[in-house]
Protein backbone atom coordinates (compact mmCIF):
# COMPACT_ATOMS: atom_id res chain seq x y z
CA UNK A 1 0.00 0.00 0.00
CA UNK A 2 1.41 3.40 -0.93
CA UNK A 3 2.44 5.79 1.82
CA UNK A 4 0.78 9.00 0.75
CA UNK A 5 -2.32 9.91 -1.21
CA UNK A 6 -1.35 13.22 -2.78
CA UNK A 7 -2.73 12.48 -6.24
CA UNK A 8 -6.04 11.35 -4.76
CA UNK A 9 -6.13 14.50 -2.61
CA UNK A 10 -5.64 16.61 -5.70
CA UNK A 11 -8.43 14.74 -7.46
CA UNK A 12 -10.82 15.23 -4.53
CA UNK A 13 -10.00 18.92 -4.34
CA UNK A 14 -10.45 19.29 -8.08
CA UNK A 15 -13.79 17.45 -7.98
CA UNK A 16 -15.38 19.54 -5.24
CA UNK A 17 -13.95 22.88 -6.37
CA UNK A 18 -15.03 22.52 -10.00
CA UNK A 19 -18.53 21.58 -8.82
CA UNK A 20 -18.89 25.03 -7.26
CA UNK A 21 -19.83 26.44 -10.66
CA UNK A 22 -22.94 24.22 -10.61
CA UNK A 23 -24.38 25.75 -7.46
CA UNK A 24 -23.01 29.25 -7.80
CA UNK A 25 -25.76 31.85 -8.12
CA UNK A 26 -28.50 29.32 -7.32
CA UNK A 27 -31.07 30.45 -4.80
CA UNK A 28 -33.65 28.32 -2.99
CA UNK A 29 -36.51 29.92 -4.95
CA UNK A 30 -35.09 28.61 -8.23
CA UNK A 31 -34.51 25.07 -7.09
CA UNK A 32 -36.81 22.06 -7.35
CA UNK A 33 -36.62 19.67 -4.45
CA UNK A 34 -38.44 16.64 -3.13
CA UNK A 35 -38.64 14.64 0.10
CA UNK A 36 -36.81 11.33 0.21
CA UNK A 37 -39.08 9.84 2.86
CA UNK A 38 -39.38 12.34 5.69
CA UNK A 39 -39.86 16.13 5.63
CA UNK A 40 -36.23 16.51 6.73
CA UNK A 41 -34.69 14.29 4.10
CA UNK A 42 -34.56 16.41 1.00
CA UNK A 43 -32.90 16.13 -2.38
CA UNK A 44 -32.60 18.94 -4.92
CA UNK A 45 -31.74 18.83 -8.59
CA UNK A 46 -28.42 20.38 -7.58
CA UNK A 47 -27.55 17.43 -5.31
CA UNK A 48 -27.97 15.18 -8.31
CA UNK A 49 -26.03 17.42 -10.71
CA UNK A 50 -23.14 17.93 -8.26
CA UNK A 51 -22.90 14.22 -7.50
CA UNK A 52 -22.84 13.39 -11.21
CA UNK A 53 -20.04 15.91 -11.77
CA UNK A 54 -17.96 14.66 -8.82
CA UNK A 55 -18.45 11.04 -9.89
CA UNK A 56 -17.18 11.88 -13.38
CA UNK A 57 -13.99 13.40 -12.02
CA UNK A 58 -13.30 10.78 -9.36
CA UNK A 59 -13.94 7.92 -11.77
CA UNK A 60 -10.47 8.48 -13.28
CA UNK A 61 -9.02 6.99 -10.07
CA UNK A 62 -10.61 3.63 -10.80
CA UNK A 63 -11.86 3.32 -7.20
CA UNK A 64 -15.44 2.49 -6.25
CA UNK A 65 -17.63 5.55 -5.65
CA UNK A 66 -20.46 5.70 -3.13
CA UNK A 67 -22.56 8.82 -3.14
CA UNK A 68 -25.59 9.95 -1.19
CA UNK A 69 -27.84 10.31 -4.18
CA UNK A 70 -26.69 7.18 -5.94
CA UNK A 71 -27.15 4.75 -3.05
CA UNK A 72 -30.54 3.44 -2.05
CA UNK A 73 -30.14 1.37 1.12
CA UNK A 74 -27.99 1.23 4.20
CA UNK A 75 -26.00 -1.82 3.15
CA UNK A 76 -22.48 -1.24 2.03
CA UNK A 77 -20.76 -3.47 -0.43
CA UNK A 78 -17.13 -2.48 -0.65
CA UNK A 79 -13.91 -4.41 -0.61
CA UNK A 80 -11.96 -4.06 2.68
CA UNK A 81 -8.67 -4.00 0.80
CA UNK A 82 -9.53 -1.44 -1.88
CA UNK A 83 -10.03 2.29 -1.34
CA UNK A 84 -13.49 3.73 -2.01
CA UNK A 85 -14.71 7.29 -2.45
CA UNK A 86 -17.61 8.59 -0.38
CA UNK A 87 -19.27 11.74 -1.63
CA UNK A 88 -21.96 13.99 -0.30
CA UNK A 89 -22.93 16.46 -3.03
CA UNK A 90 -24.66 18.77 -0.57
CA UNK A 91 -24.28 17.89 3.09
CA UNK A 92 -26.97 19.99 4.75
CA UNK A 93 -29.44 20.27 1.89
CA UNK A 94 -32.18 21.43 4.26
CA UNK A 95 -29.95 24.30 5.41
CA UNK A 96 -29.18 25.10 1.77
CA UNK A 97 -32.83 25.42 0.72
CA UNK A 98 -33.46 27.50 3.86
CA UNK A 99 -30.64 29.90 2.94
CA UNK A 100 -28.62 28.90 5.99
CA UNK A 101 -24.87 28.91 5.27
CA UNK A 102 -24.10 25.55 6.94
CA UNK A 103 -23.85 23.27 3.94
CA UNK A 104 -20.91 21.67 2.21
CA UNK A 105 -19.77 19.66 -0.77
CA UNK A 106 -17.64 16.80 0.40
CA UNK A 107 -15.54 13.93 -0.95
CA UNK A 108 -13.34 11.53 0.97
CA UNK A 109 -11.39 8.37 0.29
CA UNK A 110 -11.55 5.49 2.75
CA UNK A 111 -9.87 2.13 2.97
CA UNK A 112 -12.01 -0.10 5.15
CA UNK A 113 -12.32 2.07 8.30
CA UNK A 114 -9.26 4.21 7.55
CA UNK A 115 -9.72 7.80 6.40
CA UNK A 116 -7.13 8.42 3.68
CA UNK A 117 -7.80 11.84 2.23
CA UNK A 118 -10.63 14.34 1.95
CA UNK A 119 -11.83 17.70 0.72
CA UNK A 120 -14.79 19.83 1.79
CA UNK A 121 -15.98 23.16 0.43
CA UNK A 122 -18.55 25.46 2.07
CA UNK A 123 -19.71 27.78 -0.69
CA UNK A 124 -21.69 30.22 1.45
CA UNK A 125 -18.81 30.63 3.89
CA UNK A 126 -16.14 30.75 1.17
CA UNK A 127 -14.10 28.15 2.99
CA UNK A 128 -12.34 25.19 1.46
CA UNK A 129 -10.73 22.45 3.55
CA UNK A 130 -8.46 19.71 2.29
CA UNK A 131 -5.66 17.33 3.05
CA UNK A 132 -2.58 16.99 0.89
CA UNK A 133 -2.08 13.26 1.09
CA UNK A 134 -0.62 12.59 4.51
CA UNK A 135 1.24 15.93 4.55
CA UNK A 136 -1.19 18.10 6.44
CA UNK A 137 -4.63 19.67 6.51
CA UNK A 138 -5.44 23.14 5.26
CA UNK A 139 -8.21 25.71 5.22
CA UNK A 140 -8.11 28.22 2.38
CA UNK A 141 -4.43 27.36 2.04
CA UNK A 142 -3.52 27.85 5.71
CA UNK A 143 -2.21 24.88 7.66
CA UNK A 144 -4.53 23.67 10.42
CA UNK A 145 -3.36 22.68 13.87
CA UNK A 146 -5.70 22.18 16.79
CA UNK A 147 -5.09 22.97 20.44
CA UNK A 148 -6.37 20.88 23.32
CA UNK A 149 -9.44 21.85 25.35
CA UNK A 150 -11.30 20.30 28.26
CA UNK A 151 -15.01 19.47 28.05
CA UNK A 152 -16.07 22.49 30.12
CA UNK A 153 -14.06 24.79 27.82
CA UNK A 154 -15.44 23.26 24.63
CA UNK A 155 -18.16 24.30 22.23
CA UNK A 156 -19.46 21.09 20.75
CA UNK A 157 -21.57 20.08 17.76
CA UNK A 158 -23.69 16.97 17.45
CA UNK A 159 -24.93 15.10 14.41
CA UNK A 160 -27.84 13.00 15.54
CA UNK A 161 -30.82 12.10 13.43
CA UNK A 162 -33.29 12.19 16.33
CA UNK A 163 -35.69 10.08 14.34
CA UNK A 164 -35.19 6.62 15.74
CA UNK A 165 -38.34 4.53 15.46
CA UNK A 166 -37.27 3.01 18.74
CA UNK A 167 -38.50 5.49 21.36
CA UNK A 168 -35.95 4.43 23.98
CA UNK A 169 -33.05 5.01 21.64
CA UNK A 170 -34.48 8.33 20.57
CA UNK A 171 -34.82 9.47 24.17
CA UNK A 172 -31.26 8.31 24.92
CA UNK A 173 -29.92 10.46 22.07
CA UNK A 174 -31.71 13.57 23.27
CA UNK A 175 -30.82 12.93 26.93
CA UNK A 176 -27.18 12.60 25.91
CA UNK A 177 -27.36 15.81 23.89
CA UNK A 178 -28.71 17.57 27.01
CA UNK A 179 -25.95 16.22 29.24
CA UNK A 180 -23.23 17.36 26.83
CA UNK A 181 -24.95 20.72 26.48
CA UNK A 182 -24.89 21.17 30.27
CA UNK A 183 -21.29 20.03 30.81
CA UNK A 184 -19.73 22.16 28.06
CA UNK A 185 -19.99 25.66 26.63
CA UNK A 186 -22.94 24.34 24.68
CA UNK A 187 -23.89 21.75 22.12
CA UNK A 188 -25.08 22.72 18.64
CA UNK A 189 -26.97 20.85 15.96
CA UNK A 190 -26.00 22.52 12.71
CA UNK A 191 -27.46 19.93 10.37
CA UNK A 192 -24.15 19.48 8.56
CA UNK A 193 -21.71 16.90 9.92
CA UNK A 194 -18.86 17.93 7.63
CA UNK A 195 -19.22 21.53 8.81
CA UNK A 196 -19.01 20.35 12.44
CA UNK A 197 -15.87 18.31 11.86
CA UNK A 198 -14.10 20.91 9.72
CA UNK A 199 -14.85 23.56 12.32
CA UNK A 200 -13.26 21.34 14.94
CA UNK A 201 -10.21 20.99 12.65
CA UNK A 202 -9.99 24.76 12.37
CA UNK A 203 -10.32 25.29 16.13
CA UNK A 204 -13.64 27.14 16.12
CA UNK A 205 -15.41 24.19 17.69
CA UNK A 206 -13.53 21.95 20.08
CA UNK A 207 -15.38 18.70 19.60
CA UNK A 208 -17.99 17.04 17.36
CA UNK A 209 -19.82 13.79 17.80
CA UNK A 210 -22.24 11.84 15.70
CA UNK A 211 -24.43 8.81 16.19
CA UNK A 212 -25.34 6.62 13.22
CA UNK A 213 -24.21 9.12 10.60
CA UNK A 214 -23.75 8.01 7.01
CA UNK A 215 -20.15 7.52 5.89
CA UNK A 216 -20.53 10.08 3.11
CA UNK A 217 -21.44 12.69 5.75
CA UNK A 218 -18.01 12.44 7.34
CA UNK A 219 -15.56 10.81 4.90
CA UNK A 220 -14.44 14.15 3.41
CA UNK A 221 -14.05 15.96 6.73
CA UNK A 222 -12.57 13.24 8.95
CA UNK A 223 -9.11 13.07 7.32
CA UNK A 224 -8.89 16.85 7.62
CA UNK A 225 -9.56 16.73 11.36
CA UNK A 226 -7.12 13.87 11.88
CA UNK A 227 -4.33 15.61 9.97
CA UNK A 228 -5.00 18.82 11.87
CA UNK A 229 -4.05 16.88 14.98
CA UNK A 230 -7.47 15.87 16.29
CA UNK A 231 -8.02 12.74 18.27
CA UNK A 232 -10.94 10.57 17.18
CA UNK A 233 -12.96 7.59 18.31
CA UNK A 234 -15.20 5.72 15.87
CA UNK A 235 -17.59 2.81 15.77
CA UNK A 236 -18.25 1.13 12.46
CA UNK A 237 -20.19 -2.00 11.69
CA UNK A 238 -18.86 -3.80 8.64
CA UNK A 239 -21.24 -3.92 5.70
CA UNK A 240 -23.33 -1.02 6.99
CA UNK A 241 -23.06 2.52 5.70
CA UNK A 242 -23.01 4.11 9.15
CA UNK A 243 -20.53 5.51 11.60
CA UNK A 244 -20.67 6.86 15.14
CA UNK A 245 -17.80 9.03 16.26
CA UNK A 246 -16.27 11.63 18.51
CA UNK A 247 -13.56 13.90 17.15
CA UNK A 248 -11.89 16.73 18.97
CA UNK A 249 -8.87 18.49 20.24
CA UNK A 250 -8.25 17.35 23.77
CA UNK A 251 -9.72 15.98 26.96
CA UNK A 252 -13.25 16.62 25.74
CA UNK A 253 -13.00 13.91 23.13
CA UNK A 254 -11.98 11.23 25.64
CA UNK A 255 -14.75 12.25 28.03
CA UNK A 256 -17.48 12.17 25.38
CA UNK A 257 -16.27 8.84 23.96
CA UNK A 258 -16.41 7.36 27.46
CA UNK A 259 -19.88 8.80 28.04
CA UNK A 260 -21.15 7.42 24.71
CA UNK A 261 -19.97 3.99 25.79
CA UNK A 262 -21.48 4.29 29.26
CA UNK A 263 -24.85 5.33 27.83
CA UNK A 264 -24.61 2.51 25.28
CA UNK A 265 -25.07 4.91 22.40
CA UNK A 266 -21.86 4.01 20.61
CA UNK A 267 -18.97 1.70 21.39
CA UNK A 268 -16.32 3.90 19.82
CA UNK A 269 -12.66 2.92 19.60
CA UNK A 270 -9.65 5.20 19.29
CA UNK A 271 -8.54 5.81 15.68
CA UNK A 272 -4.85 4.99 15.34
Amino acid at each position, binding site marked *: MKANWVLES*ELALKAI*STSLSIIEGQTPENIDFKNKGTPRDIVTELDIAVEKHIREILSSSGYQIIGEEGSKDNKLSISPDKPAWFIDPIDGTTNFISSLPFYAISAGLMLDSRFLTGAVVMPALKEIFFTMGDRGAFMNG*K*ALKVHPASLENSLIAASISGRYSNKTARRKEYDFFGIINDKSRGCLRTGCASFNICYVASGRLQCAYGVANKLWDVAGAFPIALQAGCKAYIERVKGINEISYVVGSGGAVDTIAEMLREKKLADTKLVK
Partner: protein
Amino acid sequence: MSKIIILGAGAIGRGFLPWVFTPDSYEYVFVDINRELINSLNRKKQYKSYRVKSGKLEELVVPVKKACHLSEFSFLEHRDAIAVFMNVGPRNCTAAANALEGVECPVILCENDPETVTAVKDALNYEKVYFAIPDVITSNAASPEMLAKEPLSIITEDGILFMDERVRGIKGNAVYCDAAELDKQWIAKLFLHNTPHCIAAYLGALVGAKYIHEAMQLPGVKKIVTGAMNEMLTSLKLKWDIPHLFLDYYAEKEIRRFSCELLYDPISRVAREPLRKLQLEGRLIGAAQICLSLGFIPNNILTGITTALLFENKEDLDHHLSFIRNALPEDVFITYILGLRKGEALEIAIRERLPKILSQLGVLTSNSKKAVL
Protein backbone atom coordinates in the same frame (compact mmCIF):
# COMPACT_ATOMS: atom_id res chain seq x y z
CA MET B 1 27.08 42.86 31.58
CA SER B 2 23.34 42.56 31.00
CA LYS B 3 21.76 39.42 29.65
CA ILE B 4 19.39 39.42 26.68
CA ILE B 5 17.47 36.46 25.33
CA ILE B 6 17.36 36.20 21.54
CA LEU B 7 14.52 33.96 20.43
CA GLY B 8 15.30 33.02 16.83
CA ALA B 9 18.99 32.83 16.01
CA GLY B 10 18.59 33.63 12.33
CA ALA B 11 19.33 36.69 10.24
CA ILE B 12 18.08 39.39 12.62
CA GLY B 13 18.73 37.59 15.90
CA ARG B 14 22.23 36.39 15.26
CA GLY B 15 23.34 38.74 12.50
CA PHE B 16 21.95 42.17 13.31
CA LEU B 17 21.06 42.48 17.02
CA PRO B 18 24.64 42.07 18.35
CA TRP B 19 25.58 45.22 16.38
CA VAL B 20 22.79 47.13 18.15
CA PHE B 21 23.29 45.68 21.62
CA THR B 22 27.01 45.13 21.52
CA PRO B 23 29.08 42.41 23.24
CA ASP B 24 30.92 44.93 25.44
CA SER B 25 27.63 45.56 27.30
CA TYR B 26 25.53 42.46 26.72
CA GLU B 27 25.71 38.69 26.90
CA TYR B 28 23.47 36.63 24.66
CA VAL B 29 21.34 33.54 25.20
CA PHE B 30 20.18 32.24 21.81
CA VAL B 31 17.05 30.10 21.44
CA ASP B 32 16.21 28.35 18.19
CA ILE B 33 14.65 25.20 16.77
CA ASN B 34 17.65 24.33 14.61
CA ARG B 35 19.40 21.70 16.69
CA GLU B 36 22.53 21.70 14.52
CA LEU B 37 22.89 25.47 14.90
CA ILE B 38 22.38 25.26 18.67
CA ASN B 39 25.05 22.58 18.98
CA SER B 40 27.52 24.60 16.87
CA LEU B 41 26.94 27.77 18.88
CA ASN B 42 27.47 25.91 22.17
CA ARG B 43 30.53 24.11 20.88
CA LYS B 44 32.26 27.15 19.38
CA LYS B 45 31.11 29.60 22.05
CA GLN B 46 31.34 32.42 19.49
CA TYR B 47 30.75 33.32 15.85
CA LYS B 48 31.43 36.22 13.49
CA SER B 49 28.88 38.69 12.22
CA TYR B 50 30.01 40.88 9.34
CA ARG B 51 28.57 44.32 8.67
CA VAL B 52 28.56 45.98 5.27
CA LYS B 53 29.55 49.60 5.77
CA SER B 54 30.66 52.02 3.03
CA GLY B 55 31.18 49.15 0.63
CA LYS B 56 33.43 47.22 3.03
CA LEU B 57 32.92 44.44 5.56
CA GLU B 58 33.45 45.03 9.31
CA GLU B 59 33.83 42.05 11.62
CA LEU B 60 32.27 41.50 15.05
CA VAL B 61 33.11 38.51 17.20
CA VAL B 62 29.95 37.56 19.11
CA PRO B 63 30.45 35.50 22.27
CA VAL B 64 27.70 33.01 23.03
CA LYS B 65 26.72 32.70 26.69
CA LYS B 66 24.38 29.83 25.94
CA ALA B 67 22.28 28.40 23.12
CA CYS B 68 19.10 26.40 23.78
CA HIS B 69 16.56 24.50 21.78
CA LEU B 70 13.13 26.13 22.07
CA SER B 71 11.62 22.99 23.56
CA GLU B 72 14.21 23.01 26.36
CA PHE B 73 14.15 26.72 27.14
CA SER B 74 12.41 28.15 30.18
CA PHE B 75 12.46 31.83 30.98
CA LEU B 76 12.37 31.00 34.68
CA GLU B 77 16.03 29.95 34.40
CA HIS B 78 16.90 33.40 33.01
CA ARG B 79 15.03 35.76 35.28
CA ASP B 80 18.03 38.09 35.28
CA ALA B 81 17.55 38.87 31.57
CA ILE B 82 16.70 42.51 30.90
CA ALA B 83 14.94 41.91 27.57
CA VAL B 84 13.73 39.22 25.20
CA PHE B 85 14.00 39.81 21.45
CA MET B 86 11.75 37.66 19.33
CA ASN B 87 12.72 37.11 15.68
CA VAL B 88 11.13 33.80 14.77
CA GLY B 89 8.83 34.70 11.86
CA PRO B 90 5.28 35.98 12.32
CA ARG B 91 3.68 32.55 12.04
CA ASN B 92 5.80 31.14 14.87
CA CYS B 93 5.36 33.89 17.45
CA THR B 94 2.49 32.40 19.40
CA ALA B 95 4.18 29.01 19.69
CA ALA B 96 7.50 30.61 20.66
CA ALA B 97 5.74 32.74 23.28
CA ASN B 98 4.89 29.57 25.22
CA ALA B 99 8.56 29.33 26.19
CA LEU B 100 8.31 32.73 27.89
CA GLU B 101 5.89 31.77 30.62
CA GLY B 102 6.72 33.80 33.73
CA VAL B 103 8.53 36.51 31.76
CA GLU B 104 9.11 39.71 33.72
CA CYS B 105 11.16 41.85 31.34
CA PRO B 106 10.11 43.60 28.10
CA VAL B 107 9.53 41.36 25.09
CA ILE B 108 10.49 43.10 21.86
CA LEU B 109 9.21 41.73 18.58
CA CYS B 110 11.43 42.33 15.56
CA GLU B 111 8.85 40.68 13.33
CA ASN B 112 7.58 41.81 9.99
CA ASP B 113 4.03 42.21 11.25
CA PRO B 114 2.80 44.55 14.00
CA GLU B 115 -0.20 42.30 14.67
CA THR B 116 2.14 39.77 16.24
CA VAL B 117 2.33 42.10 19.29
CA THR B 118 -1.34 41.48 20.07
CA ALA B 119 -0.98 37.74 19.44
CA VAL B 120 1.98 37.45 21.83
CA LYS B 121 0.29 39.64 24.46
CA ASP B 122 -2.74 37.35 24.30
CA ALA B 123 -0.67 34.17 24.38
CA LEU B 124 1.32 35.33 27.41
CA ASN B 125 -1.43 37.35 29.04
CA TYR B 126 1.30 39.93 29.49
CA GLU B 127 1.33 43.60 28.51
CA LYS B 128 5.02 44.47 28.21
CA VAL B 129 5.30 43.39 24.58
CA TYR B 130 6.62 45.95 22.06
CA PHE B 131 7.09 46.28 18.34
CA ALA B 132 10.47 47.07 16.80
CA ILE B 133 11.40 47.62 13.17
CA PRO B 134 14.79 46.45 11.98
CA ASP B 135 15.43 48.67 8.97
CA VAL B 136 18.09 46.42 7.61
CA ILE B 137 18.72 43.53 5.28
CA THR B 138 20.51 40.71 6.98
CA SER B 139 21.40 37.61 5.10
CA ASN B 140 21.01 34.39 7.03
CA ALA B 141 24.13 33.21 5.27
CA ALA B 142 27.38 34.60 3.90
CA SER B 143 29.53 34.20 0.81
CA PRO B 144 30.46 30.61 -0.05
CA GLU B 145 34.13 31.44 0.75
CA MET B 146 33.29 32.79 4.22
CA LEU B 147 31.01 29.86 4.99
CA ALA B 148 33.69 27.42 3.94
CA LYS B 149 36.06 29.04 6.45
CA GLU B 150 33.51 29.56 9.22
CA PRO B 151 30.02 28.00 8.80
CA LEU B 152 28.41 30.24 11.44
CA SER B 153 29.35 33.47 9.63
CA ILE B 154 26.54 35.84 8.85
CA ILE B 155 26.36 39.19 7.06
CA THR B 156 24.25 42.21 7.86
CA GLU B 157 23.96 45.74 6.60
CA ASP B 158 24.67 48.79 8.67
CA GLY B 159 20.97 49.17 9.51
CA ILE B 160 18.85 50.87 12.14
CA LEU B 161 16.63 49.30 14.77
CA PHE B 162 13.58 51.48 15.46
CA MET B 163 12.30 50.71 18.94
CA ASP B 164 9.32 51.82 20.95
CA GLU B 165 10.43 54.69 23.21
CA ARG B 166 8.86 52.93 26.20
CA VAL B 167 11.82 50.53 26.20
CA ARG B 168 14.54 53.15 25.94
CA GLY B 169 15.93 51.74 29.21
CA ILE B 170 17.44 48.94 27.14
CA LYS B 171 20.48 50.90 26.03
CA GLY B 172 21.93 50.26 22.61
CA ASN B 173 22.54 51.70 19.16
CA ALA B 174 18.79 51.74 18.47
CA VAL B 175 16.60 54.70 17.57
CA TYR B 176 13.85 55.04 20.18
CA CYS B 177 10.71 56.63 18.76
CA ASP B 178 7.08 57.49 19.48
CA ALA B 179 4.06 55.72 17.98
CA ALA B 180 3.73 58.16 15.05
CA GLU B 181 7.34 57.70 13.99
CA LEU B 182 7.06 53.91 14.35
CA ASP B 183 3.94 53.98 12.12
CA LYS B 184 5.77 56.03 9.49
CA GLN B 185 8.74 53.66 9.54
CA TRP B 186 6.44 50.65 9.34
CA ILE B 187 4.49 51.95 6.32
CA ALA B 188 7.76 52.69 4.53
CA LYS B 189 9.18 49.29 5.44
CA LEU B 190 6.06 47.35 4.47
CA PHE B 191 5.55 48.95 1.09
CA LEU B 192 8.94 50.35 0.02
CA HIS B 193 11.02 47.50 1.37
CA ASN B 194 8.91 44.37 1.76
CA THR B 195 6.87 44.73 -1.45
CA PRO B 196 9.71 45.20 -3.98
CA HIS B 197 12.10 42.98 -1.99
CA CYS B 198 9.82 39.95 -2.21
CA ILE B 199 9.07 40.69 -5.86
CA ALA B 200 12.82 40.65 -6.52
CA ALA B 201 12.98 37.30 -4.72
CA TYR B 202 10.10 35.69 -6.63
CA LEU B 203 11.44 36.92 -9.96
CA GLY B 204 14.88 35.68 -8.91
CA ALA B 205 13.45 32.26 -8.06
CA LEU B 206 11.75 32.14 -11.45
CA VAL B 207 14.97 32.81 -13.35
CA GLY B 208 17.00 30.42 -11.21
CA ALA B 209 19.10 32.94 -9.27
CA LYS B 210 20.36 32.09 -5.77
CA TYR B 211 20.86 35.55 -4.27
CA ILE B 212 18.87 38.78 -4.54
CA HIS B 213 21.80 40.76 -5.96
CA GLU B 214 22.16 38.19 -8.76
CA ALA B 215 18.55 38.67 -9.74
CA MET B 216 18.89 42.45 -9.63
CA GLN B 217 21.76 42.28 -12.10
CA LEU B 218 19.29 41.13 -14.77
CA PRO B 219 17.76 44.14 -16.57
CA GLY B 220 14.34 42.46 -16.93
CA VAL B 221 14.13 41.79 -13.18
CA LYS B 222 15.45 45.21 -12.18
CA LYS B 223 12.89 46.91 -14.43
CA ILE B 224 9.94 45.15 -12.74
CA VAL B 225 11.32 45.66 -9.20
CA THR B 226 11.97 49.36 -9.85
CA GLY B 227 8.55 49.63 -11.46
CA ALA B 228 6.89 48.10 -8.37
CA MET B 229 8.89 50.47 -6.16
CA ASN B 230 7.68 53.46 -8.18
CA GLU B 231 4.07 52.25 -7.99
CA MET B 232 4.31 52.11 -4.20
CA LEU B 233 6.15 55.40 -3.99
CA THR B 234 3.36 57.11 -5.95
CA SER B 235 0.73 55.45 -3.73
CA LEU B 236 2.38 56.37 -0.46
CA LYS B 237 2.78 59.99 -1.52
CA LEU B 238 -0.89 60.18 -2.43
CA LYS B 239 -2.27 58.25 0.51
CA TRP B 240 -0.26 59.19 3.58
CA ASP B 241 0.97 62.43 5.02
CA ILE B 242 4.60 61.37 5.03
CA PRO B 243 7.31 63.79 3.82
CA HIS B 244 8.06 63.04 0.17
CA LEU B 245 11.77 63.55 0.68
CA PHE B 246 11.79 60.77 3.26
CA LEU B 247 9.91 58.43 0.91
CA ASP B 248 12.22 59.22 -2.03
CA TYR B 249 15.28 58.65 0.14
CA TYR B 250 13.84 55.37 1.41
CA ALA B 251 13.03 54.07 -2.09
CA GLU B 252 16.49 54.90 -3.44
CA LYS B 253 18.15 53.29 -0.44
CA GLU B 254 16.15 50.08 -0.94
CA ILE B 255 17.01 49.68 -4.62
CA ARG B 256 20.68 50.13 -3.69
CA ARG B 257 20.34 47.54 -0.94
CA PHE B 258 18.79 44.92 -3.18
CA SER B 259 21.74 45.24 -5.53
CA CYS B 260 24.42 45.02 -2.82
CA GLU B 261 26.86 42.31 -3.88
CA LEU B 262 28.35 41.91 -0.43
CA LEU B 263 25.16 40.78 1.32
CA TYR B 264 24.56 37.33 -0.19
CA ASP B 265 20.86 37.58 0.67
CA PRO B 266 19.39 34.19 -0.29
CA ILE B 267 16.27 34.20 -2.45
CA SER B 268 14.94 31.18 -0.52
CA ARG B 269 14.88 33.33 2.66
CA VAL B 270 13.17 36.37 1.16
CA ALA B 271 10.70 34.35 -0.89
CA ARG B 272 9.69 31.97 1.91
CA GLU B 273 6.03 31.51 2.89
CA PRO B 274 4.43 32.97 -0.27
CA LEU B 275 0.90 32.42 1.05
CA ARG B 276 1.68 34.63 4.05
CA LYS B 277 3.08 37.26 1.73
CA LEU B 278 -0.09 37.04 -0.35
CA GLN B 279 -2.44 37.74 2.54
CA LEU B 280 -5.10 40.38 2.01
CA GLU B 281 -3.58 43.30 3.92
CA GLY B 282 -0.02 42.36 3.12
CA ARG B 283 2.87 43.49 0.98
CA LEU B 284 1.53 42.18 -2.33
CA ILE B 285 -2.27 42.06 -2.36
CA GLY B 286 -2.52 44.92 0.15
CA ALA B 287 -0.07 46.99 -1.92
CA ALA B 288 -1.99 46.38 -5.15
CA GLN B 289 -5.28 47.28 -3.41
CA ILE B 290 -3.84 50.64 -2.35
CA CYS B 291 -2.78 51.46 -5.92
CA LEU B 292 -6.21 50.48 -7.28
CA SER B 293 -7.98 52.52 -4.62
CA LEU B 294 -5.96 55.51 -5.82
CA GLY B 295 -7.05 54.98 -9.40
CA PHE B 296 -4.22 53.21 -11.19
CA ILE B 297 -3.42 49.63 -12.11
CA PRO B 298 -0.08 48.50 -10.64
CA ASN B 299 1.18 46.33 -13.50
CA ASN B 300 4.52 45.58 -11.88
CA ILE B 301 2.99 44.58 -8.55
CA LEU B 302 0.51 42.37 -10.44
CA THR B 303 3.53 40.72 -12.04
CA GLY B 304 4.97 40.30 -8.54
CA ILE B 305 1.75 38.65 -7.34
CA THR B 306 1.91 36.26 -10.27
CA THR B 307 5.52 35.33 -9.55
CA ALA B 308 4.63 34.67 -5.90
CA LEU B 309 1.92 32.28 -7.07
CA LEU B 310 4.47 30.47 -9.22
CA PHE B 311 7.00 30.06 -6.40
CA GLU B 312 7.95 26.47 -5.69
CA ASN B 313 10.19 25.19 -2.94
CA LYS B 314 9.65 21.76 -1.46
CA GLU B 315 11.36 22.83 1.77
CA ASP B 316 9.11 25.86 2.25
CA LEU B 317 6.31 26.00 4.85
CA ASP B 318 3.97 26.87 1.99
CA HIS B 319 5.16 24.01 -0.18
CA HIS B 320 1.50 23.13 -0.80
CA LEU B 321 0.98 26.22 -2.97
CA SER B 322 1.65 24.39 -6.24
CA PHE B 323 -0.65 21.55 -5.15
CA ILE B 324 -3.49 24.03 -4.60
CA ARG B 325 -2.72 25.85 -7.84
CA ASN B 326 -2.93 22.60 -9.80
CA ALA B 327 -6.15 21.45 -8.16
CA LEU B 328 -8.28 24.59 -8.03
CA PRO B 329 -9.89 26.42 -10.94
CA GLU B 330 -8.46 29.93 -11.31
CA ASP B 331 -11.60 31.72 -10.05
CA VAL B 332 -11.83 29.47 -6.97
CA PHE B 333 -8.16 30.05 -6.22
CA ILE B 334 -8.58 33.82 -6.40
CA THR B 335 -11.70 33.81 -4.21
CA TYR B 336 -10.89 31.14 -1.63
CA ILE B 337 -7.10 31.30 -1.36
CA LEU B 338 -6.39 34.96 -2.06
CA GLY B 339 -9.64 36.04 -0.40
CA LEU B 340 -10.73 38.46 -3.14
CA ARG B 341 -14.41 38.98 -3.87
CA LYS B 342 -15.70 38.19 -7.32
CA GLY B 343 -16.05 41.40 -9.29
CA GLU B 344 -13.77 43.56 -7.15
CA ALA B 345 -11.14 45.55 -9.01
CA LEU B 346 -8.13 43.44 -8.08
CA GLU B 347 -9.93 40.17 -8.83
CA ILE B 348 -10.78 41.46 -12.31
CA ALA B 349 -7.28 42.86 -12.86
CA ILE B 350 -5.61 39.56 -11.90
CA ARG B 351 -7.99 37.43 -13.95
CA GLU B 352 -7.82 39.60 -17.07
CA ARG B 353 -4.09 40.26 -17.01
CA LEU B 354 -2.86 36.83 -15.94
CA PRO B 355 -2.37 35.37 -19.46
CA LYS B 356 -0.36 38.40 -20.63
CA ILE B 357 1.77 38.47 -17.47
CA LEU B 358 2.47 34.75 -17.76
CA SER B 359 3.61 35.14 -21.34
CA GLN B 360 5.85 38.11 -20.39
CA LEU B 361 7.32 36.06 -17.56
CA GLY B 362 7.95 33.22 -20.01
CA VAL B 363 10.06 35.53 -22.16
CA LEU B 364 11.85 36.96 -19.12
CA THR B 365 12.61 33.48 -17.81
CA SER B 366 13.99 32.11 -21.04
CA ASN B 367 16.18 35.19 -21.58
CA SER B 368 17.32 35.49 -17.98
CA LYS B 369 18.00 31.86 -17.18
CA LYS B 370 20.76 31.89 -19.76
CA ALA B 371 22.27 34.95 -18.10
CA VAL B 372 22.11 33.46 -14.59
CA LEU B 373 23.39 30.06 -15.62
